[in-house]
């Protein structure tokens, strides 16, 4: 019987692998263009100069990032080059402190600490950390917390002090603001920002 012949299944193994690999390559090319900064789903890094929100879109039946007018970060407007440098620094800081081994980004990582996908939009900064750190802005509160998390305990599980410098903390904040503008197909579900609350 043909199904008991190894060469029959060998042909099946080779053909299915080749076909699926070719399809994956095509989809990869398209996906990479969609997720490049300025692509269909991922805004340019200079989006950090604008207001960002996350609202439910009835037509698409899911929440989507909403980019608004100018809203400067740390009171300055970043050029294309400056924004790129800030993002490079932010990502390097995130990697050097192994943030992903406690937190998650787009739900990927460890699960010990909260997901950071929309952390920039979290109402807790305004409600809790701005008064606690005596800061006038959300970004200033985030910087103070990142530099000295042990000074601002929030609940039983604390963030360790990772010796994050001021420059690194600002870069992380910029990175989180940019990340919150990415369209992630409705993830996280039902996230209520300070504005939508």
């Amino acid at each position: 019987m043909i199904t008991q012949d190894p060469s029959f299944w060998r042909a099946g193994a080779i053909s299915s692998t080749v076909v699926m690999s070719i399809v994956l390559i095509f989809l990869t090319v398209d996906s990479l263009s969609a997720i490049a900064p300025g692509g269909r789903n991922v805004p340019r890094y200079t989006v950090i100069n604008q207001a960002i929100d996350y609202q439910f879109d009835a037509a698409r039946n899911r929440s989507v990032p909403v980019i608004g007018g100018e809203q400067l970060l740390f009171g300055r407007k970043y050029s294309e080059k400056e924004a790129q440098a800030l993002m490079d620094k932010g990502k390097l800081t995130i990697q050097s402190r192994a943030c992903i081994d406690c937190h998650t980004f787009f739900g990927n990582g460890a699960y010990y600490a909260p997901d950071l996908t929309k952390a920039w939009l979290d109402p807790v900064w305004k409600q809790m950390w701005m008064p606690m750190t005596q800061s006038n802005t959300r970004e200033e509160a985030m910087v103070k917390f990142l530099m000295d998390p042990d000074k601002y305990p929030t609940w039983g599980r604390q963030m360790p002090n990772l010796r994050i410098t001021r420059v690194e903390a600002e870069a992380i904040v910029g990175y989180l603001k940019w990340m919150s503008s990415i369209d992630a197909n409705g993830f996280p579900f039902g996230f209520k920002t300070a504005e939508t609350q």
Partner: protein
Amino acid sequence: MYKSQQVALKYFAAAIVLFGIMVVAGLLAATQYVHNGFLLNQLDFSITKILHIDTMILWLLMGFMGSIYWFLPGELNRETEGIKLAEIMFYILCGAIAIVALVFIVVQYGGANEFSMWFINQGRKYVEAPRWAAIGIVLVVAVFCYNIIATTIKAKKVTGIMGVLIVDLLPLFALYLIAFASITNMSEDLFWWWWLVHLWVEGTWEVLIGCIMAFSLMQLLGTERRIVETWLYIEVALVLGTGILGLGHHYFWIGTPGYWLAIGGLFSALEPLPLLGMVVHAVYDAGTHRMKTTNKPALYWMMAEAFGNFLGGGVFGFMMTLPQINLFSHGTQWTVSHGHFAFWGAYACGILSVIYLALQKAREIAEVNGGRWKWGFALLNLGMVGMVGALLISGIAQAFYERAIGGSTLQAFIEGQSNMWFVQGINARLIFGVMFALGYGVLVYDLLTLGKRKAVQPALLRPA
């Protein structure tokens, strides 16, 4: 015994040591969930987590390599080419692992600069090892590939299993090169990172363990080559036919286009099929031999591999893979539950089976049985199933309260983590983790004393 098999025993010994470090680091991380502040600012959760998952990857990788070095000479009836180089690379790898572990424990973090990436911590899950060590792993895998390909060429014989193995080596080697990337854009970084993690674990590793199990079945049960090769091809067709685009279930929420929801959902829903095939294959083979073998622990660990792979990888994966469910389950303890069960079932059990087989031959034991291995087998598997169940309870509570109701804000996260069901699950995980650790202790004792506890008559080994 071939020199290649002596090297294999060294790889197995190192794998079991790393298995132990993984267990200890896992217990520490589990304790950090239960006792807030445990080792805070000394050995933070991120470090215990890194030690836990990186040693897991390494012990499984060393187990795979040991298994191939063990079976290769028998398959090709000759010594492995370049085996001295392989032995040197083994010691280099062990040294590199020790240095990296020390740096993780003592130095822990560096500044936001390239020096940290090269010498301290790359901070990318599973591939945190600094770049210098990643280069070492590339070299070790390159020598491993050379050993296999050169031996096959010298033997002038390509069996079906060897053909699959050699073709599998190329992506195994090439995909690891992604470990060096440092991409600013998180979406793109995760896109390629999943090529590495998914296509390694749910592609090349599945094929690799399929080859190893094919070798094992022939040695353990004397199964006909034609049958194991047929099953291996079926498995490859289904694993890669579903698994390559099954990669899409990691592309639901990272900024990638919406078509991945349908593609990833469909193909990953089909991924249990080859795993079900492996169960059918293993049960059929064991049944036709009426479970008769001279190496009971090897047979039982192989059966555990087949069932564990299907349940942990297949059923538990399917349970959370459709995007409608994954939107809530993604990134919760539900994922952790699936991850533990899948790695244990798909790979760990299979490697333990091969280690028992190898020790039987290395120590010339006529029949491997007795009571001790059963305690190890039971404690390890019950401990794992207990952990998986406990984490599932926590994960579902988290998906419900944090994700579906709370909306994933920090406040929702805290409420989810404080939920009674979550807390009970996470406490139970630690208890079952201790049970698992006890099982590890019994396993190590059994492996160390196998064939040495009482005088056994050396026997010429027939197919076990």
